[in-house]
């Protein structure tokens, strides 16, 4: 279980709009309260460098300046910043394994109000444009979740709110 604390390992939680890259194998990166937002994580299994961001919106259309100060707030800016920071920390782009979680959807909403769907659509478009395939994903549905990535092993998993058992990705 990645969600329970392990002796000798530190859980480092990234809040909504945050982005973090880390090369300490004793760290388990995680993000909680992933509702309509999406978490995107990437991991290099050779260097054990990994990172993630927790986007709340697809793009910074309404306020482009925000993407500069907080790239992790947006799917598009977050993806670019994650890839750049990982490579600056010694990861090799071709080796990166990508994971995604979140994008909870509301029902019968107009497209403007279905932020979860807009986030997952934006993510899939961006990944396709860059030729990136997700190694594991847990997207959509109607439930908030948490995401975990162990930097030592590359294990990734999600835990749905109200559930006890993790789902491995």
């Amino acid at each position, binding site marked *: 279980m990645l969600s329970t604390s392990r002796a000798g390992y530190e859980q480092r939680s990234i809040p*909504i*709009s945050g982005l973090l890259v880390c090369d300490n194998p004793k760290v388990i990166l995680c993000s*909680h*309260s*992933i*509702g*309509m*937002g999406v978490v995107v994580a990437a991991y290099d299994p050779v260097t054990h460098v990994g990172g993630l961001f927790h986007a*709340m*919106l697809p793009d910074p*259309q*309404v*306020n482009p300046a*925000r993407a500069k100060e907080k790239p992790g*707030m947006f799917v598009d800016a977050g993806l670019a910043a994650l890839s750049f920071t990982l490579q600056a920390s010694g990861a090799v782009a071709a080796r990166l394994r990508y994971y995604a979680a979140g994008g*909870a*959807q*509301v*029902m*019968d*909403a*107009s497209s*403007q*109000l*279905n*932020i*979860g769907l807009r986030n997952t659509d934006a993510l899939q478009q961006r990944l396709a444009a860059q030729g990136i395939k997700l190694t594991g994903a847990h997207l959509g*549905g*109607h*439930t*908030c979740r948490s995401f975990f990535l162990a930097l030592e092993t590359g294990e990734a998993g999600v835990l749905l*709110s*109200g*559930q006890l058992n993790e789902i491995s990705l």
Partner: protein
Amino acid sequence: MTSIEDYLSRVKNLPPAPRILPELLQLLRRSDVDADKVVSLVKYDPALTASVLQLANSAFFGSARPAGDLGEAVTRLGFQQVYILVAAVSGARNLSPAQKGYGMASGDLWRHSATSAVAAQIIAKELGDDVDLVFTAGLLHDIGKVILSDTLESTYSVIVHETSQNRYPLLEVERRILGFDHAQVGGRLLAKWNFPPSLVAAIEHHHQPDHAGEHARLAAYAHVGNLIAYSLGQGYGNAAYAMEPSSAAFRILGLAEDSLPNYMMHTFDQMGVIEALFRVKT
């Protein structure tokens, strides 16, 4: 099926009534607010007073010099801010426990409610509406879940199935199982607690604000605040997102639907305030 009144009369552990809020709201509606009356109303509850002072002196609400007592807090922060702190502490008392029938852990409903209240308040401030009333509507919109949670615990697996397999909104599943939903129960509870009719209607219709008649605007605030809380990840438990956002809520407030991301960002910028509310001691 039982009526809501019958159901409420049989509920063993009704949450404690936040008696002070309807009275305070009434006091604040007057053009000549009497500071002494406000202070004496709050002061009779020492635990509430202590928590309000703790919040008033926290980094996000405090002025340069800490307030030693409630009178000082009112002078420094103003009635409106003190009301919001009193509402937050009263709300936290009711909304902090786990709601197992909804799969929510301790603190989950409180986080959701506080975020909804702050989000709704940000919009009300911008549109020039009654900030105290809107904050209260956002804060208490899901109070009915506190009542229904115990009953729904035994039917939890049915709810999971109906929302995930049959794709029914959570509200409809409640109606199918009980004959009524948490919004109706919340409205009835607020009426029992002597909250003003506007808040009763807003809570009862927060999922369909266009059904709230003359109080549609307040219900729309509760709806949009709720939606923003969800969009920021503050929606917990089983199938919490199995809800239907109302385009009517945006129309009622005169907002374009594409303004949602903007208000999400404004609410995100108030996370410090929201975090301070999360940590409130009750």
